[in-house]
């Protein structure tokens, strides 16, 4: 029974949500649109006609190409390091009781709750006192450092939802700790680890603040864009940003598909299994 008050509320909510979504998506839309802009001169602020010329050679600017290559390489290295370290940290925090676990829990969370400018400044201070020259390596160290927290939190959430008994069952059947980890634990937390790795690489590619402190002479994609804002951002930046956006959208689509397939498989298995054994199937989610 919809009263007129309900209708007004519904409309108001729809309009408000639409405005919020517009606010979120107009800037992204503009970035994509202006990768097709036939701009004359250095600036790419006003629409001057459609062209595909920037898409034909997105790496025309050699500095930009180097910056993007650096960003991708740094993201790859930092993701591998942070995912490996973070996954085992999460395992330790969830599976083992040890002195100071609560403190470690809080310390892991701290980088998430610290303004990036503080993290960047602190790292630079550390590198300065240790007389380390800032550059590619220090960026990788910095990115590994602050993405670990995201990995730990994501993998921890997955581990906490996992049934301990399955691991115990494996060990009861004579599997060693290592075999149990490889054959039981790892496959079960794999979606969480994959999500953590994706998150880590996304944050690494996107980071400006911490990188700007620790980059030395090395250019990354965000650093290049920020530097270019003074002389006019070349449209190739729009092309590459649109490309990154597409990659992320495809990965997100794949992730959704994978989750659906896993959920469907679980449903089938639940339907076949006896009720007692069905209770042993881990809750996905």
């Amino acid at each position, binding site marked *: 029974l919809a009263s007129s008050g309900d209708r007004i509320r519904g409309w108001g909510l729809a309009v408000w949500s639409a405005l919020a979504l517009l606010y*979120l998506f107009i800037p992204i839309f503009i970035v994509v649109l202006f990768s097709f802009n036939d701009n004359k001169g250095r600036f790419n602020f006003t629409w001057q006609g459609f062209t595909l010329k920037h898409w034909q050679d997105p790496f025309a600017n050699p500095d930009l190409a180097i910056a993007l290559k650096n960003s991708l390489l740094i993201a790859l290295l930092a993701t591998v390091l942070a995912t490996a370290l973070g996954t085992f940290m999460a395992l330790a925090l969830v599976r083992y009781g040890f002195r100071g676990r609560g403190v470690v829990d809080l310390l892991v969370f701290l980088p998430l709750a610290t303004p990036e400018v503080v993290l960047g400044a602190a790292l630079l201070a550390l590198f300065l006192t240790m007389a380390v020259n800032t550059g590619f390596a220090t960026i990788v160290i910095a990115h590994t450092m602050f993405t670990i927290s995201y990995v730990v939190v994501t993998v921890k959430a997955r581990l906490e939802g996992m049934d301990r008994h399955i691991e115990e069952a494996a060990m009861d059947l004579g599997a060693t700790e290592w075999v149990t980890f490889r054959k039981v634990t790892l496959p079960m937390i794999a979606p969480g680890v994959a999500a953590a790795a994706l998150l880590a690489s996304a944050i690494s590619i996107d980071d400006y603040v911490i990188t700007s402190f620790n980059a030395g002479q090395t250019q990354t994609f965000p650093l290049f864009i920020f530097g270019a804002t003074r002389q006019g951002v070349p449209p190739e930046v729009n092309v590459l940003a649109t490309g990154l956006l597409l990659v992320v959208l495809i990965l997100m689509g794949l992730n959704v598909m994978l989750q659906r397939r896993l959920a469907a498989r679980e449903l089938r298995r639940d339907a076949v299994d006896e009720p007692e054994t069905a209770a042993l199937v881990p809750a996905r989610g």
Partner: protein
Amino acid sequence: VHGEPDIRLERVTKRFGDMTAVDALDLEMPRGAFYALLGPSGCGKTTTLRMIGGFEEPTDGRVFLGGDDVTERPPLSDSGWVVERLRDVGLVGEDGRLLASRTAVIAGITYNFLPFMILPLYVSLEKIDRRLIEAATDLYASRVTAFRRITLPLALPGIFAGSLLTFIPATGDFINAALLGTPRQFMIGNVIQSKFITILDYPTAAALSFILMTFILICILLYARVLGTSNLTEAAF
């Protein structure tokens, strides 16, 4: 390129209503040359200069500065169409600009951190049992009362977590102030960054970072005292 004119006008026309101030003006000025615009009052000298300077958009024709087509103003610039329309309805400040203002910096930071507010709110709203709201309305609570007594208290952890997750990064942000503001809008992050990178005054920068960090730690500890840490990590992811 040598010989390329520094300023070039192509059939530039400006009309104010029925009055044509500048009519299809062609003009080329090479680099380093001196020119004088002469004419009686009201013949369009100022309008021409304003169009070259980008304070006025021509009705027709094109303006080039050093090879760049600057005829159309970017929509959000001081003389762009968005700002002009906003000015018509009185929605821009006294200085008449949108960019390089405090509003622009706040809008930029809001844009950056809006998802960090939406996600925790979504998580805590989704968890609310709808039957509680139904029960409240069955017991004659109005929609407003049900929202105030049921939805709002149950969403509080999300609201707090979202506020913390947006407030903390926003306090340290310096990109928005640097790109969208002027030095008058600089925030503590800009100060720390310039002291560290440009002025190389490490002790002051370190002290400022530490003060900022302490302030934020106090916020988090207060939050953890009231609502617990699990709530925060859970709401964040």
